[in-house]
């Protein structure tokens, strides 16, 4: 049967879903509606290789327009500002109306904004999309001392890139460690040391009281009364799912769009995937919302299958990375539910990993090392987690013993 399938949000989850639907359904109309006037592109390089000029705009696209044309996937640059789930319609600002039989919502997430009580709102920059990355790149070319508010992944990646561009960088973090929400303190401290070794200043446990601007220079007053002078401010203080559009509808929301393990929302024929969805994970037996590259891809693919009628459970073990300086940090599974922690290695040059176990099985792990040093072990860990294997802790804790042994059994 021929259907009208609409994908709202032209990012990573959206494009993977579209192509997966086409793989399973050659007849239906597939249309992606995206408010950025760009084909779907990768965001991870925005804070890293794009700022460093190692990657250009054309390197970021997932697929060329030819791939979409070949697969008969339509992409329209439009911003949707109203939905009517009852009549299965979407409305755009320019009065265009789009009818669907099945809808995938993949609107991603948006940056939290600082609450400032003066006119400086437009002076603070945030990084989520290519346009913002271009603006930041342009402005920093003649700025020297740059302050990053927020010591999370994106803030620290920007701090690493700016340091490599010979800028003086200050990071202000409200918590008592970097990447506090999800990374164990031991790993955060190793990353912090690397930033300091490269000349970045890291200020922890401090809140911003006030920001003022004098003669083009910003003054940031902290809650201990210290004052920081800076030429430019970028904030990376977390993100929220992009759900404003659905707030007065029947769609069930709770830290994103609530979905089951089949990417189905509370409304029939409406699915959600990627950063915007708070999905049920059957392995962890709870709902979670993830903001990661691997998840956006795999969740998009899973939604695509389900929309095309191939009922498929989403069971992917979470995985994400962050690249800062010559370090690669990786996180797999969930590190917040454990009765035992096992450490593997203690030298960042060979990689350091913390495993989080419950009932002798791995639930998650987090590692950091010089590029290339933790990836294989983290990957094996994901597989061991997925298989719910009871692990030999001796092998886990001894870096001289290969983890491959655990998986081949």
């Amino acid at each position, binding site marked *: 049967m021929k259907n009208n399938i609409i994908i709202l949000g032209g990012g990573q989850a959206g494009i993977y879903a579209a192509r997966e639907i086409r793989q399973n359904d050659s007849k239906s109309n597939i249309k992606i509606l995206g408010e950025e006037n760009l084909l779907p592109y990768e965001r991870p390089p925005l804070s890293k290789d794009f700022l460093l000029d190692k990657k250009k705009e054309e390197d970021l696209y997932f697929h060329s327009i030819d791939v979409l044309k070949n697969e008969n996937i339509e992409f329209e640059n439009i911003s949707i500002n109203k939905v009517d789930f009852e009549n299965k319609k979407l409305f755009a600002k320019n009065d265009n109306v789009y009818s669907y039989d099945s809808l995938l919502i993949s609107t991603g997430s948006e940056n939290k904004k600082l609450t400032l009580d003066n006119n400086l709102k437009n002076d603070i920059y945030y990084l989520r999309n290519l346009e913002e990355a271009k603006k930041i790149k342009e402005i920093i070319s003649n700025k020297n001392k740059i302050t990053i508010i927020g010591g999370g992944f994106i803030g620290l990646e920007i701090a690493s890139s700016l340091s490599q561009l010979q800028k003086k960088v200050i990071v202000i973090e409200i918590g008592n460690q970097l990447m506090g929400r999800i990374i164990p303190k031991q790993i955060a401290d190793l990353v912090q040391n690397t930033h300091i070794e490269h000349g970045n200043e890291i200020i922890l446990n401090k809140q911003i009281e006030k920001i003022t601007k004098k003669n083009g220079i910003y003054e940031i007053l902290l809650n201990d009364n210290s004052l920081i002078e800076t030429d430019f401010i970028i904030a990376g203080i977390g993100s929220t799912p992009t759900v404003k559009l659905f707030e007065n509808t029947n769609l069930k929301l709770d830290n994103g769009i609530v979905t089951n393990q089949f990417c189905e929302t509370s409304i029939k024929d409406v699915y959600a995937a990627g950063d915007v969805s708070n999905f049920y994970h059957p392995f962890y037996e709870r709902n979670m919302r993830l903001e990661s590259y691997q998840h956006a891809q795999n969740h998009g693919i899973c939604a695509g299958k389900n929309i095309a009628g191939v009922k498929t459970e989403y069971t992917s073990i979470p995985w994400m990375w962050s690249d800062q300086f010559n370090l690669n940090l990786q996180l797999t599974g969930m590190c917040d539910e454990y009765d035992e922690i096992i450490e593997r290695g203690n030298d960042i040059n060979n990689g350091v990993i913390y495993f989080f176990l419950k009932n002798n099985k791995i639930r998650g792990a987090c590692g950091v090392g010089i*590029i290339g040093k*933790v*990836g*294989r072990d983290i990957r094996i860990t994901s597989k061991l987690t997925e298989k719910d294997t009871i692990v030999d802790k001796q092998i886990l804790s001894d870096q001289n013993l290969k983890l491959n042994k655990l998986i081949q059994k």
Partner: protein
Amino acid sequence: MSEENWIEVGSTDSIEEEDLIRFDHQDKTFCVYKLTDGFYATDGICTHEAVHLEDGLVMDDEIECPMHQGIFNIKSGEALSPPACEDLKTYPVKVDNDKIFIKID
């Protein structure tokens, strides 16, 4: 095929099964693999970013990059999973008297 392009990598027992070794020759790096049905060789650096694949995971006929989990088919070099999208170059391998040789063009 001229003889002189075959470069000796090492002995066949220098690689465990389902594993790889890194081989540097002049200014290039290669990975040489032992799979269940024989030896294979590819470029040693990921096509996504400049990372050595020697630290990657070999599973079945695939090598997975340790940095962002890009996956390549070892036998064909085909990029199978993003963020890797450019194929990996492969090289012919032969075994002679328990020694592995790869043909570099």
